[in-house]
C-alpha cells in the first residue's frame, strides 16, 4: 500500500533552492572577476594540464572585460549566500536535523562501502538512516566549504581590516587560491550531485520540492502474542 513518508522539512527545501541560483550567480560573477587575472593552472612536472579557462569558454559566456560588474554582483549576492547558509545551519542545529547530517564514527568506513555499492562493485549497501554515510560526509563537507568560501572571501575582500582571517588562510595570495579551489569543489560537487539525483529517480527528487516520499508499506503482519516459555515461568 502506498503511503506518504515525510522526508525534507520546509526550511531545508527552501534553503536548498535559494542556494542554488545564488551560488550560480556567485560562481558566474566570480568568473567575471577571475578573468581579470586568470593565472591559475594545474602544472605537473612542467606540463600545464589545465588552464582556467580557455578563450572559447570566456567568449561563449561573455566573460571578458566585466571586472567591475562582476565585483558589484559578487558583493551583493554574497549577502544572500551567507545569510541563507547561516539560516540553514541554524535550523539544522535547532531542529536536531544535524544528527542526520554529521558523519559518525563509522561514516568514513561506510562511505567507502556506499561508493563500492554505487559503482556496482558491491551488492549491498550498509544500512542507513535518512542519509547514507557518503551523503553525510558530502553534505557536511559542503557546509564547511561554504564557510571556507566566506572566510577566504573576507580574507581577500578586506585583507587589512580582517588581517587575522588573511593570516589564517596563509596570506592574501593563498587565500585567493583557496577561494578559487573551493569554487572548483562546488562544481565537482554539483556534477556528482546531479548524477546521483538522476540515478535516485523521481521520488527522491520530488521530496526536495514537496518534502515527502511515497513508500510502499507492507501491511503490518499481525503477530499473535504467544507468551514464550521464559515469560511463562515468570508468570
Amino acid at each position: 500500500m502506498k503511503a506518504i513518508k515525510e522526508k525534507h522539512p520546509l526550511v531545508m527545501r527552501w534553503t536548498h533552492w535559494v542556494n542554488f541560483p545564488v551560488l550560480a550567480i556567485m560562481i558566474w560573477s566570480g568568473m567575471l572577476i577571475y578573468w581579470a587575472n586568470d593565472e591559475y593552472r594545474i602544472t605537473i612536472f612542467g606540463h600545464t594540464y589545465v588552464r582556467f579557462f580557455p578563450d572559447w569558454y570566456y567568449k561563449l559566456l561573455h566573460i571578458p572585460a566585466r571586472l567591475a560588474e562582476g565585483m558589484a554582483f559578487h558583493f551583493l549576492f554574497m549577502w544572500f549566500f551567507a545569510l541563507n547558509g547561516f539560516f540553514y545551519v541554524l535550523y539544522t542545529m535547532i531542529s536536531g536535523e544535524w544528527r542526520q547530517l554529521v558523519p559518525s564514527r563509522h561514516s568514513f568506513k561506510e562511505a567507502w562501502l556506499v561508493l563500492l555499492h554505487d559503482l556496482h562493485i558491491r551488492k549491498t549497501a550498509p544500512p542507513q538512516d535518512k542519509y547514507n554515510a557518503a551523503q553525510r560526509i558530502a553534505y557536511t563537507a559542503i557546509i564547511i566549504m561554504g564557510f571556507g568560501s566566506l572566510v577566504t572571501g573576507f580574507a581577500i575582500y578586506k585583507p587589512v581590516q580582517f588581517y587575522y582571517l588573511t593570516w589564517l588562510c596563509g596570506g592574501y595570495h593563498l587565500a585567493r587560491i583557496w577561494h578559487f579551489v573551493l569554487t572548483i569543489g562546488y562544481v565537482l560537487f554539483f556534477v556528482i550531485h546531479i548524477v546521483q539525483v538522476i540515478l535516485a529517480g523521481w521520488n527522491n527528487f520530488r521530496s526536495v520540492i514537496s518534502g515527502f516520499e511515497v513508500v510502499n508499506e507492507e501491511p503490518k503482519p499481525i503477530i499473535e502474542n504467544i507468551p514464550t516459555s521464559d515469560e511463562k515461568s515468570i508468570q
Partner: protein
Amino acid sequence: MKNLFSKKNKSSKKPITVEQNINRKNFISFTIFGVYAASAYSGWRWLYKSQIETAGITAGAHKPLRRALNKTELFFRRLTFNENHLVKTYPRSMAAKKIRHNSDIGSGGVLPPEFWKLKVKKISGETLQITLDELMKLPKTAITYDFKCVEGWDQISHWEGVSFRDFMANFKLEAESKLEYVGMETPDKRYYVGIDMPSAMHPQTLLAYQMNDEPLNGNHGQPLRLIIPVKYGIKNLKRIGTITFSNNRPYDYWAEQGYDYYSGL
C-alpha cells in the same frame, strides 16, 4: 457535537485516499515551486537589465548594484575600519626587483623635474607649490608590503617617501585634514582619485618618490606618487600634480567606470 451538524457536514465526505493526498500535496508544492522559480528568474532579469546609474561622481554601474556597493562598503567600513590595523609588512629582501607596471594613464614618459611642482590647494584659496627637494627633506618613511591590484594580482614591493600624515603636519594642513576627502590628480588631469581622509591619514600612506633604491621612473609615477596600502592599486595615483581637499567626493577615474568609490582593503 454541534459542529458535526453544522451546514457543511464534513463527516459525510469520504476521507481522501492516500493517492489523492499525494496528488494534492504535489500540486501545492509544485505550484509554489513554480511561482518561486518564475519570480526568482524575473527578479534576476530585472536586476540584470536594470538601468545604468546617471553619470556623476560614480558611473557605469547598474543603479541597484551601485546602491548595494555603497551600502556594503559603508557597512564593512563602519564595522572594521581602524587606522591601527596596519598592512602587513615584509622584510626588505622579499621585495620584487622589478615592479610590475600595469598602466600609466596620465603619467607616461618622463617629466623634467624643473617642470614639476606639487600644487596643494588650501581651503583658504591659497595654493602651495612644493618642490621635490622640499619633500625629500621631510622625515623619510619606507614600507615593504604586498601591493594589491583590483585585477587580482599582488606583489611585494618596497617604497620610500614622506608619510601623508607628516606631510600634512609639516605644511600646516590641520584645517584641511578635518575635511572628509582628499582629491589627487595627475598634472595633465587625465587620472584622478578621491580618497577618504581616514585612509589618507592612515600611518602607512605615503607620498612616495622612491622605489627600491631608485627614484621613481616614468612607469611608476615619476617624480611623486601615492602609495596607499589600505586601497587597491587603482587608488595609488601615479605622478601627483595637484592635491585638493573637500567634504564632497572628489572625481575618481575608476569610480566612473563602475568600480566601487571606496575600494578599500
